[in-house]
């Protein structure tokens, strides 16, 4: 077998496996989210279909598939059908460059444990996630419904606003690694002896917040606020077309979690022996930790107001991300070899200061609030 044939077959197999795994993760995540959120709200969650309600997503899928395919009057049919496809295809393709293990050797050839090993991996993921805006905008526009259009515009304005902080925090990671290749980024973390969550702790926090907003998830899910916008851009979508938006969202969540794992948590590295199957388990565990964190956030915080959301993105996240980037660059130049150590120290110190300031501001606001509203307990009921 020639080298080229081998490469073709290997990459085809990898592509199919990743595709199947990603699609299979969607029902698992939907089930998990319903269960986790239910438990946090003192409910039980799905428990009728199958053991622990495990087959519930399957039942939902059958229902969605069999639903009547309504095309509302006055929609732009071409765009209306295209929008769900546009929202899921980039989501699936974005995962192609994420590495999930050390390259392994099969029959004397190197096989990368990622669908495509490219030079500019991290930028590729960001670029494809910026294409996700289209699905939402077009869905809102084509539906011939005011609320859909407003929801779509809001969602896309929010997504593009938070793309900039995401990009800026990623630049700080690239500064440390000196490469856009995701494999290099993981290896560099092993080489420097500490995962990037240490020297980039502030960046990590910014990335988690900004990516949560970019995923349109609660508490940043103003775009699909059921109470205000009758569910936003997908109001007029039923059945499987609706399901496709959902799948796109969950796949994006997996990709973002995987990206955060690769950039900040050392990728597939963990404790114990360094064999590829253990590494894979570590990788999956870290991804699920992130996903459960996102679910936890969703269950804990109320939705924030749209003007606050945009103001936060432009006035807090961008300056903070720029400061983080500048600090990283300066420390790298000044501290040279000991940059990692210094960055870790600076980040932790800054975080402590940040917490202290937050506490101070909070208590002051609470004080003012008490003065304005004499009996807050009575008001709250």
């Amino acid at each position, binding site marked *: 077998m020639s080298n080229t044939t081998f490469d073709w077959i290997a990459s085809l197999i990898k592509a199919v496996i990743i595709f199947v795994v990603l699609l299979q993760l969607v029902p698992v995540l939907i089930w998990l989210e319903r269960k986790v959120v239910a438990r946090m709200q003192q409910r039980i969650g799905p428990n009728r279909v199958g053991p622990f309600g495990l087959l519930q997503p399957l039942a939902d899928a059958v229902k969605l598939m069999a639903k009547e395919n309504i095309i509302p009057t006055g929609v732009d049919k071409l765009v209306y059908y295209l929008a769900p496809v546009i929202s899921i295809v980039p989501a699936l393709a974005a995962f192609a460059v994420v590495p999930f293990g050390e390259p392994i050797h099969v029959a004397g050839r190197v096989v990368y444990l990622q669908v495509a090993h490219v030079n500019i991996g991290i930028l590729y993921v960001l670029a494809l996630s910026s294409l996700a805006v289209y699905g939402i905008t077009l869905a809102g526009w084509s539906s011939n419904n005011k609320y859909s259009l407003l929801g779509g*515009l809001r969602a896309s304005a929010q997504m593009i606003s938070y793309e900039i902080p995401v990009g800026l925090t990623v630049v700080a990671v690239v500064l440390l690694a000196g490469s856009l290749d995701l494999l290099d980024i993981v290896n560099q973390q092993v080489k420097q002896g500490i995962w990037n969550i240490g020297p980039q702790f502030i960046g990590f926090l910014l990335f988690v917040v900004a990516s949560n907003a970019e995923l349109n998830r609660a508490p940043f899910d103003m775009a699909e606020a059921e109470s205000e916008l009758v569910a936003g851009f997908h109001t007029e979508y039923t059945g499987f077309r609706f399901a496709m938006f959902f799948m796109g969202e969950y796949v994006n969540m997996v990709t973002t979690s995987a990206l955060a794992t690769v950039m900040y948590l050392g990728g597939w590295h963990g404790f114990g022996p360094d064999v590829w199957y253990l590494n894979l388990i570590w990788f999956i565990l870290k991804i699920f930790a992130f996903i459960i964190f996102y679910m936890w956030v969703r269950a804990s915080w109320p939705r924030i107001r749209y003007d606050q959301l945009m103001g936060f993105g432009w006035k807090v996240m961008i300056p903070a991300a720029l400061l983080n980037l500048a600090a990283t660059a300066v420390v790298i130049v000044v501290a040279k070899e000991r940059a990692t150590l210094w960055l870790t120290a600076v980040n932790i110190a800054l975080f402590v200061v940040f917490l202290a300031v937050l506490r101070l501001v909070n208590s002051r606001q609470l004080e003012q609030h008490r003065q304005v509203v004499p009996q807050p307990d009575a008001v709250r009921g």
Partner: protein
Amino acid sequence: MTWIPFVLIAAVAVFFALYLVLSKNAVHGALSLVLVLVSLAIFFLLLGAEFIFIVQVAVYAGAIMVLFLFVMMLLNVGGAEGPLRENPSWQLAAAIVLGCVLLFEAALHIARAGEGVRHFPQAIAADFGSPERIGQLLFSSYLLPFEITSLVLLAAMIGAVVLALRRFP
């Protein structure tokens, strides 16, 4: 055999370029322009311009076209009128004549250059078009243009804000 990707992608690009010019609907036109941009991005990739490829996708397809869509929705010009709505016929004639002249010029150039432009057998390094090389060039030969770029962006930022926020009588 290696002609196939070129012909396929070129056909896609030309088809959607024509669709942009002739379609009645501005939003459909914008979507077809996105497809043209993406097919050109694939060409960039095949021509060894890895970084430019991703910039094309991220900036052109991911940002500039989004602004076009936003403005169309903002101004509600989605379902615009026919493409050739009551255009003066001299304009149409001038356009076609000018187009023919342009094409003829290109053809003339190709014909005159003959074998000269057909092949420069040039091997390229493995990192041709990588972000490292772009960065090295940007911070050596092209340092001044790079800094001036920030002025262009500053001017654009101020200009657009002034124009968009202005109160009209």
